[in-house]
């Protein structure tokens, strides 16, 4: 049963043969810490050895607590951070090697949905200008074509009639409408991949479902790949097939949603699941067992398994010495933990 990692188990399961849309190999994003102006004080290892493939039309969820590196991972995929080592390959092209034109092609293929919809929209631009900016930067010269595309995409995100919204400024829109504009902007250049960074965490509960349904609908109708980043496990199942659990810059567990929810292997994943609130009156009286302490410093991460200082079942002499390899307890399920190994 125990099997050390063979790289392509997951992708093979999802899409048979064609190359993945996005392939990330041993990605490391380290930020240099400087003391004074020149001398180096160390690195923040925000992303430290992440590998995964993403197929066409596939949606994955990345979960983990604040500061675990999921935003850094996302920004690296968006091209906002430069990888320290490793590679991001999109449709067979390595992003770091793209020229100007290639970078424009790459960027037009990725849509970015942000967490704070109000902050994501320039407050001094109206909706038309906000959407047009991306088209101008994307190299669409004709104003008529730009307007046509804007109208089309606004219909897709159900902001209609579009004319009612074009002249409005972000502060005149509700949170849900703002997030629709953000999604419209992400969809403008007909991307193949949407990166959504906690797209509903700042919205009212009533609006959340609508936005998630909208994203899901778009994903299905356009065969979009989606990377959905969240710290809230309860929203992941809406449209993700797989879930990656990140801890301290590394992915500790990758599994299909149902598999993960029912059969979490990593102690950290189990803790996350325990911590998820369900609207149940009994919760008010029960005490949940959550791991003590805080996520480790990314400057000097613990040796061995990075979770071992907080892990109740850590094996002395092993977990604090050696990094656990990735093993597969079930099909489409990879976990890095010594407990699964033994």
């Amino acid at each position, binding site marked *: 049963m125990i099997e050390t990692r063979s790289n392509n188990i997951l992708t093979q399961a999802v899409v048979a043969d064609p190359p993945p849309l996005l392939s990330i190999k041993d990605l490391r994003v380290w930020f240099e810490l400087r003391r004074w*102006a020149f001398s180096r004080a160390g690195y923040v290892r925000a992303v430290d050895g992440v590998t995964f493939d993403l197929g066409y039309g596939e949606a994955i969820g990345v979960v983990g607590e604040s500061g675990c590196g999921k935003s850094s991972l996302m*920004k690296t995929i*968006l*091209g*906002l951070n430069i990888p320290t080592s490793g590679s991001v390959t999109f449709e067979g092209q390595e992003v770091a090697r793209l020229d100007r034109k290639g*970078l*424009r092609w790459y*960027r*037009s293929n*990725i849509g*970015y949905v*942000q*967490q*704070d919809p109000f*902050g*994501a*929209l*320039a*407050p*001094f631009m109206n909706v038309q200008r906000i959407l047009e*900016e*991306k088209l101008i*930067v*994307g190299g669409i010269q004709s104003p008529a074509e730009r307007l046509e595309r804007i109208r089309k995409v606004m219909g897709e995100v159900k902001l209609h009639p579009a004319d009612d919204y074009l002249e409005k400024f972000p502060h005149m829109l509700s949170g849900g409408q703002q997030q629709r504009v*953000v999604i419209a*902007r992400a969809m403008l*250049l007909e991307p193949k991949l949407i990166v959504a960074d906690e797209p509903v965490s700042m919205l009212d509960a009533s609006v959340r479902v609508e936005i998630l349904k909208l994203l899901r609908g778009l994903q299905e109708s356009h065969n979009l790949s989606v990377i959905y980043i969240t710290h809230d496990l309860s929203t992941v199942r809406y449209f993700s097939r797989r879930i990656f659990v990140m801890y301290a810059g590394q992915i500790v567990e990758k599994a299909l949603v149902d598999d993960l929810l029912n059969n979490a292997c990593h102690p950290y994943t189990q803790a996350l699941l325990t911590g998820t609130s369900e609207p149940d009156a009994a919760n008010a009286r029960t005490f949940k067992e959550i791991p003590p302490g805080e996520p480790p410093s990314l400057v000097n991460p613990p040796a061995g398994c990075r979770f071992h200082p907080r892990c109740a079942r850590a094996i002395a002499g092993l977990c604090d010495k050696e990094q656990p390899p990735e093993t597969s307890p079930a099909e489409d399920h990879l976990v890095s933990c010594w407990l699964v190994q033994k």
Partner: protein
Amino acid sequence: MNTIKKNFAELLRYPSAAFGMVIVVILLGISVYTMFAIPYDEAVRLWRGGESVWYQNPRQAPPAWFNVFSAKKLPVSFAMSSASNQSARTVTTDAQGSSEIVDTYTFDFQYDEFPQELALYFTAKFGAKQPFTAITWLTPDGRTINVTTMSLRADQAYRFAQDEKFKRLMKGKEPVEALFSDPNAAEPTPLKGTYQLVITTSTFEKDSTVDTELVLHGQLYGWAGTDHLRRDLGIALLWGTPIALAFGLLAALGTTLTSMIISAFGVWFGGWVDEAIQRVTELNLVLPFLPILIMIGTFYSRSIWLMLGATILLNIFGGAIKTYRAVFMQVKESPYIEAARSYGASDARIIFQYLTPRIIPMLVPQLVTLIPTYVFIEASLAVLGLGDPILPTWGKVINDAQANGAPYQGLYYWVLEPAVLLMITGLAFALLGFALDRVFNPRLRGV
């Protein structure tokens, strides 16, 4: 466009803003009027002109409206000339071509003081034979005084006060006093009423003509008064307006916009660019500004444009850079800028389209309140004797007044007129700026 209209409407809700705006509009109106009414070259010619330009004016005379506030009415200056048909002229010509020209000047004199001086100017055209003239003075009480007779040169001036012969004729009395005084009064007091001056000129050639001009140097002159060189202060006060506004506006715009752009570049590119800008700013902040300007003025040139340039340069790296930096640092981290980066907006696009617009609400009120600061700097330079050598400005009027001891002679108008204009300008822009601040930064509204 709509936002501008809305902000404007909101601005008018503050009475102080409306008041400030009215003054600013008036100042702008004066500027435009001045530039059309007294073209630049004309203004420079007048301001640098000497006695030949300003002979009609008395020296150091307060403005005419002083009479409104004083019980004793002081004589107001005036000039009348035959060329502009202000005299009653009769010409009789005989067969030989000789003619007799009689110019009669009639004027009302209702003042309690004597004028400074009375003068006649003749412009005669003749070939070989000089015209001959006789001057007669008719008082309101019916006396006739034969003042003098003389032959005329092409340009002849006759100043009553300097005519010793006439003074002897009047038994040693000052000529102007003698002409205007009441013979029955114990103390010399002017006689009120209608005076007439008759100038009878005989010419002896066919085409010979004579034009005459009567100038009365009273104690008061015009709406602004005159200075020690008989110059009409009105010109300096009028021309000072566009110069002060232009200097203030250009300096404020120049420093604010440049500071903003430099600050935005520093914040956006960060690293050594930001570091360099910050250190240069700190260095510049400890440099004394006025002494450097004085040095430039003393050793190099006092041209107002050079001073403007130096003012802008020395103020670009000022405290404002730090203020803008603080705002930009915050805006730089905004998600919408991250979004712009993710879709590949260029650095220049982000700086000019995404970063700088956020600071406009802060910048506009600051810019407006900065204008008077620079207006005062320009005036201070002029007061220190570093004003532009050619242009008439408010500061230079104060400088002249100070150099000629205006306050010690009681000539307060000379100092107060430009000073009040400076204060009004400062007040207007300050009121407008504070109100703009409240409109653009709603958090201050309750304050």
